[in-house]
């Protein structure tokens, strides 16, 4: 599976790693829903650490899309909410300007 660490790049991860990420991811989601930012940061940090340590970095020119995208751990709760809001993400995509 291909995973993107948002603002960092793409990695190929194994089935086994995918399972572990899954668990962390569910906890991250629960933390977000509960508004628990420190817990959210911890889970995201751990996911980043795992992917960076055990995933295989994809070359920059690889055009394949990722199956999942992990937001940065230093993202604030507010930023995360904006990410999920109707048109908050990628406010700069040039398509809007045209």
């Amino acid at each position, binding site marked *: 599976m291909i*995973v*993107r660490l*948002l*603002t*960092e*790049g793409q990695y190929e991860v194994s089935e086994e790693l995918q399972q572990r*990420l*899954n668990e962390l*991811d*569910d*906890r*991250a*989601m629960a933390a*977000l829903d509960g508004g628990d930012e420190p817990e959210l940061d911890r889970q*995201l940090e751990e*996911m980043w650490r795992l992917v960076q340590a055990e995933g295989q970095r994809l*070359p*920059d*020119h*690889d*055009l*394949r*899309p*990722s*199956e*999942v*995208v*992990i*937001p940065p751990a230093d993202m604030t709760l507010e930023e995360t909410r904006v*990410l*999920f809001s109707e*048109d908050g*993400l*990628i*406010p*700069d*995509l*040039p*398509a809007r*300007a*045209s």
Partner: protein
Amino acid sequence: MAGLAQRTSTVIKAKLSKLIGRAEDPAEQLDYSYEQQLRLLQNVKRGIADVVTSKKRLQLQTSKLEQELVKLEDQARQALAAGREDLARQALERKSAAQQQLRSLDTQIEQLEAQQEKLIASERQLNAKIEAFRSEKEVIKAQYSAAEAQVRIGEAATGIGEQMADTGLAIQRARDKTEEMQARAGAVDELIAAGTLDDFTSGQTQLDRELAQLSSSSDVEADLARLKGELGTSEQQKQIEK
């Protein structure tokens, strides 16, 4: 995955499909997408330039404050030598305030540095993907029927679109940081202008004036003493000559 990462991915793809699915004709769609990519690349370059400008401004403030520290230290020494402990204390208090500002500026510069590096990495990745997309686009145009092309465009466009979303977020974050820094740098300027933190840089503060008075009065004293001395010697000489 039903968690945060999956949701993020879904959100990004949903937004991209709106973006990508504009043109009917596959070839047109490819060219349109390519134009967007190039524009985004321009945005990254501007973003990097903004961060650098902001960083330079903070560095300028840093060097001003560093000069201030030296000056205030000198003033404190002069004041002490003149037996004016109150003035020396005042100078040292200002020095401490300037030092605090300096430390916070250093942290801010580091943060901007980190944003700059992120953006440069993002630019490199986007560049590589745009190159890959450009050759892919020519292959698709040349080799596939309209129906097949649609599918292949969808894949390539999602791949690069994701990178665009990624880069877009990096730009946004750098911009937020830059704006925050500019506001803070502006606040330091304002503080200096309002005299709250004292305008260290524009010469005459109350402290400067008092020190100037002090030194001018001691100059007067010194001159007086010198003149007295000369007068004394010439009187003595006259006595000897007699």
